[in-house]
Structures are given as structure tokens and as C-alpha cells.
């Protein structure tokens, strides 16, 4: 089955320090990978995606992610974290079952806490 795993429940980082949120994937064939952010009581906001091409993908709000095929990882990164980056982050993979049936399978989510 195609899935993603987010091994950490919570990531604490000091403001101004680099932020990394980990994601590994299990996919047969080429993976289509995504990152989303969720603020309290809000819907998910799309950050970035990897479909094909450059392994380093740049997204919204200064975030980027690196696709690593040998390690089957797609870690989310930000060089300098802000307090406003405190939120829940989800990694997702596209699951296709043919006939136009495409849906996203999400990881469990990582709570990021940026400490002032």
C-alpha cells in the first residue's frame, strides 16, 4: 500500500534556528508527494509538492523540501523558523487506484512548536 510516515509527534525548535520535519514514503512506482500546514481549527493549506524534476522543491512561506529517492524521504525544511510557523504539518502521497480515482493518503502529522 502507498503510504507516508511521519516518525516524530512533535518538533520543538528555537526561533531563528533551522526547522526540519521528517517524512518517509512507501510507494510503488514514482511518488507524488505533498506537504500541508494546518493552523488550529482551520483547513489544510498546501505548501509544496514533488511530482518530477528537481529534488529540491521550494514552496510557500519560505519552506522547501528535498526528495531523496535512495532514502525514500521527503523532509520539509525552513532555514530560519518563525514563531508563526508553529502549527501542525502533514506529509501526503498521491494514491491512485485507476479510473481517475486519485486521493491523498496523509501521515499522522507533526506538531511544530517554535520557541521565542
Amino acid at each position, binding site marked *: 500500500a502507498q503510504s507516508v510516515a511521519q516518525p516524530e509527534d512533535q518538533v520543538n525548535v528555537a526561533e531563528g534556528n533551522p526547522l526540519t520535519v521528517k517524512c518517509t514514503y512507501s510507494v510503488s512506482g514514482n511518488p*507524488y508527494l505533498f506537504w500541508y500546514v494546518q493552523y488550529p481549527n482551520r483547513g*489544510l*493549506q*498546501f505548501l509544496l509538492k514533488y511530482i518530477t524534476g528537481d529534488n529540491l522543491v521550494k514552496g510557500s512561506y519560505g519552506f522547501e523540501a528535498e526528495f531523496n529517492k535512495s532514502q525514500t524521504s521527503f523532509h520539509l525544511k525552513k532555514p530560519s523558523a518563525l514563531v508563526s510557523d508553529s502549527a501542525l504539518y502533514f506529509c501526503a502521497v*498521491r494514491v491512485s487506484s485507476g479510473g481517475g480515482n486519485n486521493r491523498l493518503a496523509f501521515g499522522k502529522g507533526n506538531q511544530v512548536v517554535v520557541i521565542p
Partner: protein
Amino acid sequence: SQTIHQWPATLVQPVGSPLSLECTVEGTSNPNLYWYRQAAGRGLQLLFYSVGIGQISSEVPQNLSASRPQDRQFILSSKKLLLSDSGFYLCAWGQGITEAFFGQGTRLTVV
């Protein structure tokens, strides 16, 4: 540009009462539509998805049902709510292999 509307934002319903949550998409045609539930502020569970009018796929057995009466309208329903139906419900749309876009969610509390 495409937009997705989901309402109501919050809902408190007694056990045994019916439920109807509505989601509409503007600015696109023939989208894939999804209903997710998020319990305890964490993981997302896909409940239903639809690739066209009247075409509904259910991911998990449950007390809920979904319908797609129009191309850009997706409705989540229940005839009799259970306490366990409480949660944060999210509607989303997508096309092809690209990302999905989410509504703002409905916080349902069954009392």
C-alpha cells in the same frame, strides 16, 4: 480562480439527530471531491471520495453517507448521529495527480 466553500463552521447536534454538511467548489469543473475527518486534532481519515456526479466511494464503514447531486456539490449526511461522530470534518477538491485544496472545515460536536 478556484474556491471551495464548506459550511457550517461549527455545529452542535444531539445524539440521534440528522446531519447535513455541504461543500461546494467554484471555478472548476468535474473535480474529484473528498470528505475527511480529523479526530483529536491530528490524523486525517478519508471518509468518501467522488470522481463524478452520483459516484461515491466509501473508505471506511460508518454511520455517515455522502452524495454528489451536482458536479461541484458534495454533501455529507447522517440519519442519526452518534457521539463518536464528533470531530473536525474537511472537504477537499482536486484534479488529476496534483494537490488537493481544502475547505475551512466544520467542527461537529455531538452531545
